[in-house]
């Protein structure tokens, strides 16, 4: 198929070593008029330095309030192929593993019902099918769901939980991040597909404090694997490393708590002072391994900067065993949501709400005991509140 539009500006982005998204759009355009018009409209945006999308209306599939992002061109007359250009969020499998068969199946359906463009993956972790018309949503959904796939979250709902690859291919994972993610996703299908919250709620699960899923920066609830006991040290392997690296410079001196000593070829860790930052383990993965009493730290609240500034998640439960059926975990989540539901304003994320009503109030209301791991440092100004039971009458 010959090119529908001249795209001199985008053509500049076919040059260079890195794989080109323009080539991708052209590939899709060769099959799909929607993709062809996408190319045309994006070229115009490049020329005018302006987006040409309209804020989406409410579109979706029957019985679901989420999973589809409505999108319309603001110049549909010029580019009728993108008059509707909704995205469909398909819940990706935990850890983003696929077989070619599974992928092909989805791709075939997408060529049938959509633009042939995808994002592998969206920032939240969905498989994003980019661009289709309202009338195609139902048939597409019937086809994918009948084959075992479902939509992800959007709107004021639980968003598609995601995780690092965890135990599947990483020697450091303290929790089965994939199993947990799968379980949470199944457990909260209703909360995911039928928005009923003040705002979005994201879960991200990392197997260890390396946090390869960036959970601490972009999940309302971050679950990060850790251990309670001692780093396991294999002194023979320490000796092997000694010939390859400068253990003092790369391990001992970079330990943030200064709890490692290395003398006479032996490496000793004062585990009572270790903060489990993972640096030493990452440097000497053959010699050092996380302990065996495993679980997770639960952190709450991160989000992007709108409205009062970016938040990172902070510790609310220092240690929780994360084993099926995860009762303790779900109980906690449910209590938090109940509180959010009661107190949250529209479009107020949990982190913002806690900030507004204060962290101590959150802890009291939700019934969590204060713990020094929750703060970097205690408060400075001595303006604290007391309850009736603290007062002598």
């Amino acid at each position, binding site marked *: 198929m010959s090119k529908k539009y001249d795209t001199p*500006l985008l053509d*500049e*982005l076919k040059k*260079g070593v*890195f*794989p*080109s*998204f323009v080539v*991708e*759009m052209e590939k*899709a355009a060769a*099959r799909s008029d929607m993709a062809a018009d996408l190319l045309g409209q*994006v070229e115009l*945006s490049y020329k005018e330095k*302006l987006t040409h*999308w*309209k*804020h989406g209306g409410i579109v979706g*599939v029957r019985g679901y309030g989420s999973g589809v992002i409505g999108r319309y061109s603001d110049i549909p007359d010029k580019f009728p192929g993108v008059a509707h250009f909704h995205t469909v969020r398909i*819940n990706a499998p935990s*850890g*983003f*593993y696929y*077989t*070619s068969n599974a*992928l092909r199946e989805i*791709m075939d359906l997408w*060529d049938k019902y959509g633009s042939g*463009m*995808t*994002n*592998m*993956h969206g*920032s939240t972790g969905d498989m994003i099918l*980019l*661009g289709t018309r309202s009338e195609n949503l139902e048939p597409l959904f*019937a086809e994918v769901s*009948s084959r075992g796939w479902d939509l992800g979250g959007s709107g004021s709902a639980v968003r598609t939980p995601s995780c690092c690859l965890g135990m*599947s*291919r990483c020697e450091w994972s303290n929790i089965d991040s*994939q199993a947990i993610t*799968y379980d949470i996703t199944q457990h909260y*299908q*209703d909360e995911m*597909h039928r928005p009923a919250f003040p705002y979005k709620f994201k879960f991200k699960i990392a197997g260890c*404090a390396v*946090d*390869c899923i*960036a959970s*601490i*920066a*972009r999940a309302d609830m971050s679950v990060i694997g850790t251990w309670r006991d001692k780093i396991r040290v294999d002194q023979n392997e320490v000796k092997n490393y000694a010939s390859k690296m400068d253990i003092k410079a*790369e391990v001992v001196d970079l330990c*943030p708590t200064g709890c490692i000593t290395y003398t006479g070829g032996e490496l000793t860790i004062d585990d009572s002072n270790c903060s489990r930052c*993972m*640096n030493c383990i990452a440097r000497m993965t*053959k010699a050092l391994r996380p302990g065996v009493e495993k679980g997770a730290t639960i952190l709450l609240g991160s989000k*992007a900067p*709108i409205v009062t500034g970016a938040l*990172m998640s902070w510790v609310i439960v220092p240690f929780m065993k994360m084993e099926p059926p995860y009762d303790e975990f779900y109980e906690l989540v449910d209590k938090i949501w109940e509180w959010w539901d009661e107190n949250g304003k529209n479009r107020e994320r949990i982190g913002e709400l806690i900030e507004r009503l204060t962290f101590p109030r959150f802890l009291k209301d939700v019934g969590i005991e204060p713990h020094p791991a929750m703060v970097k440092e205690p408060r400075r100004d001595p303006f604290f509140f007391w309850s009736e039971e603290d007062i002598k009458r």
Partner: protein
Amino acid sequence: MSLPDRKTDIGPPHYEQFLHPVIKKNFGKWKYHEEINAGVMVHVAESGEKIYTVRAATPRLLATDTIREYCDIAEKHCDGYLRFTTRNNVEFFVDSESKVQPLLDDLKSKDYLVGGIGARISNVVHTQGWVHCHSAATDASGLVKVIMDEFHEYFSSKELANRCRIAVACCVNMCGAVHCSDIALVGVHKTPPRIMHEGVKNSCEIPSTIASCPTTAISPDPANKSVKIKLEKCMYCGNCYSVCPAMPIADTENDGIAIVVGGKVSNLRKPPMFSKLAVPWLPNNPPRWPEVVDVVKIILKEYEKGARKHERMGEWIARISWEKFFSVTGLEFKIQHIDDFTYARETFRTTAAFKWT
């Protein structure tokens, strides 16, 4: 052509069915890994079994045909197994060393950019931009492309002191971990929204529009059954536009790119850090944004030159100090660098100890 019966609330397929047999067998029993080169690593299980991972860059915005091509490769070399990483690379698995080179050769013959493992620049986490979002102040995919064209060697071979995570967000909604990245580009507006009174009247809920403004810049305009904006209070966040589409904020000349640096999410050595402002505004200059590429180049070069082994961007800056960051990069320190937001006070220099620059 009758449709199959739809199912609801079944969730995603269980991941186990997609795991390579070696991965499945050694699940949770990995012992260590070794980085063989920028694009290949091996994980060794307690059982002694090994899985070799070969990683290649993707532009994330993928045509179905490209994904089919990945499938072809996976079928040819990996029994059909593959995965994507959290930074949008594609990974192929083989279970013996001898299978690695044929796979690499195949990828090379198809011009794949293999790499991204270890202390390098990996793929760029990014967002929709002009390709799909109404809120975009810039394009994301284009910026990723020009940045990675420039730094591809740091993906496929050259090493840095540590990982350098780059991210792009097309507006301050920041749909990515931009706020905690080593280097991030953010599309920003510089002018307040324009109020289309007709549209506001007809299609926006006025109270929620007013409530959406973090700086209380918006107030009712009863005469027009619309709203008005106190210009000097507006910080161009676009939050009102997300709530009320009749207040478009995009501006062809004044929209641009801010660069923030020094963030991280890992807990190694130093706790996670927010990115901080390096450059408040550079012109939106598609298709190849030369001004942006130049500045990123300067920052990266100074990091490369100055950082000690294992230091992330933010750790390097913390060691040399922000004042030195500005002097070694030659970037101008402007009034916009000084915080005036929620937690401004905590950024003021409450010490007489700083470096001369």
